[in-house]
């Protein structure tokens, strides 16, 4: 048990004696807070802010792609010089837009916004802890993220524009300001921001791992952890192992850019002169980048899958099918995610033998992913499904995960990747499997845990409307991109007019853009619902979804420390839904087996003898 926890308990004991609690000031309660719940809210709100920016940028470049002849003069008040005198979007700013869209969505929304929010919020609440192992580090984690956000945000407004070499920022393009304006100050700010971001991610991850391993309440063994917690644990481990590699990649890039080294640069002739750099390798950067980059996509999707597991089980009123297989497949995915990175590099000219090895490993990772999808579907089978908005988003997630996952089988097969690499097929693939799926995981989580976040309910009907508009909208955006990709359309193209081969599908691109705009607009329904419900939503009942996990045993508005009095003990796994013989269709984790002889399985009856039920009230 960590020092913080002991101190907290002492504080609480102190409170009990005097029957009052010392009010925290505004700053320590809402700004420099060490309460994991407040920090989670900070991550969530910042994530929502970034999602709006990232989504907004995509709308601007979708206008260009869908309606290349459109007069964009009306954007001048916002974009200034980036609208050319002919009223068109500047071609270089287009690249900056796609770069920033990718960076923001992958790192700021789906990594910090998702893991930061839900790992922080749910880990202590679901394992039965007063707070994180180190509240202070946790606070630092958010404020590093905040600083990183400020730097990235500032880079949007500088004269030479933000980084523009694609979100993967491959050198030499990202190393040479001669090659593209965005590789000047914009790229410097990108690197600084990412360095801060990595520090934030590491502080967070180390905290999550420590907390999960050390601070579980009595009875909360690893085989009784909710799958959410398992997913956060594996995600945090992936983060700790892979983010430092990105930092080193970024550091070497900083050296190449500013101190004249040649890690990634060799034999370059640009802007009328031969550069002195020899001996470096641009491919080295790609290896380092994807050594993070591939685990990163699992850092993005695993928490979403964990959240989905919890929500699907709760709302199907059934135990998650194959609990151990789910953990096993997450561990498998976690391990394999470190040895598949070079499937992003089949056509970079690396040794074809490496290509073969990475093809095999990549297709192996499809197996645990398939297991997960099948298990979700089997969990629905013979359930008694309640379609809360969270449940709808979770089902949507599974649908996206399958659709996007299957196209990965094409891309992972090196010989097929030759023709598909860097086309819209790839764009369609990862936007479904990683972008939309984890975005839906994020939304599902917000809808499901909103009552715990803010003590109030979100509006159910608006949530469902939001789901259907988003779900249909997202398929309308990304499904057509498969056709465009099979036809060979390259990604990151400002326009397709230069090529005879790509003079088709102007109509399809227009459709995609319209769908994107509508989908983006639908998110404002969510924003309204979210902010309105924080203040005016219906007060939440203690356990609105009749769920088994520990967070629903806390008060409606939990104080710092989460539980009043002792932390509840845990006696069973979190998925005893619709157990035969049981009175209700759910048995919370805090109910001992000795209280439920009517529903116990044989081996569980054995367990009753060892249970320590002191301090547990008999359920009414």
């Amino acid at each position, binding site marked *: 048990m960590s020092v913080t926890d002991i101190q907290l308990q002492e504080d609480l004991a102190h409170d009990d004696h005097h029957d009052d609690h010392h009010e925290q000031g505004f700053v320590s309660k809402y700004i420099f807070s060490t309460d994991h719940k407040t920090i989670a809210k900070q991550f969530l709100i910042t994530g929502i802010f970034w999602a709006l920016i990232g989504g907004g940028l995509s709308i601007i470049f979708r206008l260009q792609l869908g309606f290349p002849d459109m007069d964009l003069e009306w954007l001048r008040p916002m974009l200034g010089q980036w609208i050319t005198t002919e009223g068109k979007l500047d071609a270089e700013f287009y690249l900056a837009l796609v770069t920033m869209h990718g960076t923001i969505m992958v790192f700021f929304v789906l990594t910090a916004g998702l893991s930061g929010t839900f790992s922080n919020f749910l880990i202590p609440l679901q394992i039965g802890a007063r707070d994180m192992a180190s509240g202070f580090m946790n606070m630092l984690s958010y404020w590093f993220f905040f600083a990183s956000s400020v730097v990235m945000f500032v880079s949007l407004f500088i004269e030479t524009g933000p980084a523009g070499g694609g979100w993967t920022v491959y050198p030499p393009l990202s190393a040479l300001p001669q*090659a593209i304006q965005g590789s000047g100050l914009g790229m410097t700010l990108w690197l600084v921001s990412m360095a801060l971001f990595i520090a934030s991610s590491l502080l967070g991850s180390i905290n999550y791992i420590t907390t999960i391993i050390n601070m579980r309440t009595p009875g909360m063994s690893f085989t009784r952890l909710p799958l959410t917690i398992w997913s956060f644990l594996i995600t945090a481990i992936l983060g700790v192992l892979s983010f430092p590699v990105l930092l080193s990649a970024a550091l070497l890039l900083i050296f190449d850019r500013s101190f004249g080294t040649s890690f990634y640069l060799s034999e370059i002739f640009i802007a009328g002169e031969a550069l002195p750099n020899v001996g470096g390798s641009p491919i080295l950067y790609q290896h380092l980048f994807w050594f993070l980059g591939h685990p990163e996509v699992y850092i993005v999707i695993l928490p979403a899958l964990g959240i989905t597991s919890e929500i699907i089980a709760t709302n199907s009123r059934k135990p998650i099918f194959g609990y151990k297989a789910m953990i096993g497949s997450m561990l498998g995915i976690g391990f394999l995610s470190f040895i598949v990175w070079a499937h992003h590099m089949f056509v970079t000219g690396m040794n074809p033998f490496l290509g073969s090895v990475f093809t095999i490993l990549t297709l192996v990772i499809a197996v645990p992913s398939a297991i997960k999808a099948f298990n979700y579907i089997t969990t629905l089978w013979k359930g008694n499904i309640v379609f809360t908005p969270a449940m709808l988003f979770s089902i949507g997630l599974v649908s996206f995960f399958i659709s996007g996952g299957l196209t990965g089988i094409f891309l992972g097969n090196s010989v097929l990747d030759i023709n598909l690499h860097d086309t819209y097929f790839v764009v369609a693939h990862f936007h479904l499997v990683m972008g939309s799926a984890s975005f839906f995981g994020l939304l599902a989580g917000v809808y499901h845990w909103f009552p715990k976040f803010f003590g109030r309910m979100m*509006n159910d009907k608006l949530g469902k409307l939001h789901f259907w508009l988003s779900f249909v909208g997202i398929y309308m955006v990304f*499904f057509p991109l498969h056709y465009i990709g099979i036809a060979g359309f390259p990604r990151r193209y400002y326009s397709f007019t230069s090529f005879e081969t790509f003079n088709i599908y102007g109509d399809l691109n227009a459709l995609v853009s319209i769908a994107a705009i509508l989908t983006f607009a639908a998110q404002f329904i969510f924003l309204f619902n979210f902010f309105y419900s924080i203040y005016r939503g219906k007060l939440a009942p203690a356990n609105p979804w009749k769920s088994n996990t520990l967070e629903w045993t806390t008060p409606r508005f939990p104080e710092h420390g989460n539980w009043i009095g002792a932390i509840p003990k845990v006696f069973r796994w979190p998925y005893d839904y619709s157990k035969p013989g049981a009175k209700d269709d759910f048995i919370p984790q805090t109910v001992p087996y000795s209280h439920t002889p009517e529903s116990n399985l044989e081996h569980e009856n054995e367990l009753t003898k060892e249970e320590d039920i002191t301090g547990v009230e008999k359920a009414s």
Partner: protein
Amino acid sequence: MLSLIIVIAVVLIIAVIFTAYRVTTLVDVVKKDKSKSHVPSGNSLQGALMVVFLIAGITGFFYFSMKEYDTYNLPIASEHAVVTENLFWITMAVTVFVFILTQIFLFGFGWKYRYKENNKAHYYPHNNKLEMIWTIVPAVVLAWLIISGLKQWNLVTGPAPENSEVIEVLGYQYAWAFRYPGKDGELGNYDFRKIDAINSMGIDFEDQKGHDDFMPAQLVLPKGKPVHLKIRGRDVIHSVYNPHFRMQMNAVPGMPTRFWFTPTLSTADMREKTGNPDFNYELVCNKICGKSHYGMKGIIVVLEQDEYDSWYKENQENSFLKQNPGYLSQVPEDLKEAAKIAAGIENIEKEQKVTAAASSSK
């Protein structure tokens, strides 16, 4: 004016949403007293919508895929593409089968097992046999796909055949340059320090083999003969891509790459096949390379072998050195005479002398 209308429209939409929201909440409050169920009303509707979405989605998917088959599926024009295309469609069949099946189960279960008052879910925590099945079956299918894929991969990325036509391709912001080996059949060395506005590929004239190299404006290939592209990048990474040949390889500064393939349809063949008299194979840059990335195009011309031979013969008379004799100064003294012969410059000088003499005699 336009922006004012947009602002008003947005405000109105928000007002409508807000009002609708207030109305539904009030209706809910009134309704709530009647039913004790914790399940919100309209649960079955959600299940029904899932089935509607499923049917509409699958119908749309098959309709569009069939109707547009010839549009998105570009005709194949190389030898290896026939096999990879085959594998592509086998993979497509497998994935579409799984896709349809799983989506039917997902949304179908949504409808079939939607909440009903007196139902109780089936407590079904695991089934090892089922889980084994859906671990092993995907593993076997994937293994089969991997093995078929890797066989092809090894052929495509393996060494180019002995008799292949060696051509150098260089990508730079924002164009392509091509170099052919000339009479001696061998490309000369290059050095990025030798690059200038005219010698765009940095031919190193200290190497004798480069003296007869020629650099046409288009990438001309023979039909039916293996072509071995030696690929270089000059400033940033580019990518040599053409969807008809199913061909792609990055052009990396400092790390030469290669790709070989055999074109099977000439440009003329393709014009006939597509019914487009202006058809051209296009060399596409497919790695983000800067502002005009989207305009970085090269033209690829595929000729019948005999046409190609005569084209080659014609062009090898126009060696780079011959067209830019100023670069003779970069040739070492002892190689100069040989260089003139290799580049065909001797002939020029002779011809010039002859014509000069002829004109002076007049």
